[in-house]
């Protein structure tokens, strides 16, 4: 069963080499298992991106298909 849980994040490195990680697990001896942070906020930071809305997108490119109830 999958339970809902918060995700802890850490930053390692310095200056331009700093990267963000998610804490996957903590071992009994305190060792942390990390993986790169793939949260939407982290993605936007790495891409140098500001959010846009569907309405803004459609104003530039035209209408997209409506939701189909799948997800």
């Amino acid at each position: 069963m999958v339970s809902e849980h918060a995700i802890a994040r850490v930053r390692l490195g310095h200056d331009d080499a700093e990267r963000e990680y998610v804490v996957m697990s903590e071992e009994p001896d305190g060792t942390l298992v990390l993986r790169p942070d793939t949260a939407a906020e982290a993605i936007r930071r790495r891409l140098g991106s500001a959010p846009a809305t569907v309405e803004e997108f459609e104003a530039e490119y035209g209408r997209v298909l409506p939701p189909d109830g799948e997800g």
Partner: protein
Amino acid sequence: MAPRPRLARAPVVFDAEAWAEDLQPASGREVAVDSRARLEREGQPVSELRACDAEGRDGTRLAGCLKVYLPPPAGPWGFVFLLGRSTDGGPARLEFLAFGLRHPPEGTRRPSVYAIAHRRLHGRVPRPPAS
């Protein structure tokens, strides 16, 4: 002044970390890699883009995201995109958020592309509504 003509294809950008994570499962890799190469070369046809559900039946909440099925038009895989634009300005663009199966086989622990996108947006796995 005449309105600016709308573009038929939207630019797509990919984040290396999210991309690498989603391609760890072996299956679907070829579809993902081929699709990314096509999108980076030609852009995403807007006619294939569909809005995600604000509240999915599986508990996912993806308001403001767009998706495309792979291979188009109705393949079993999908990309989910954020919408954004460069902080330097410029046109709106699609930003890769997740790749995966639309409907993972029952009994597997593999998340759907929608569950991956939800976790990246909200920091939590989706909670299916009580039945």
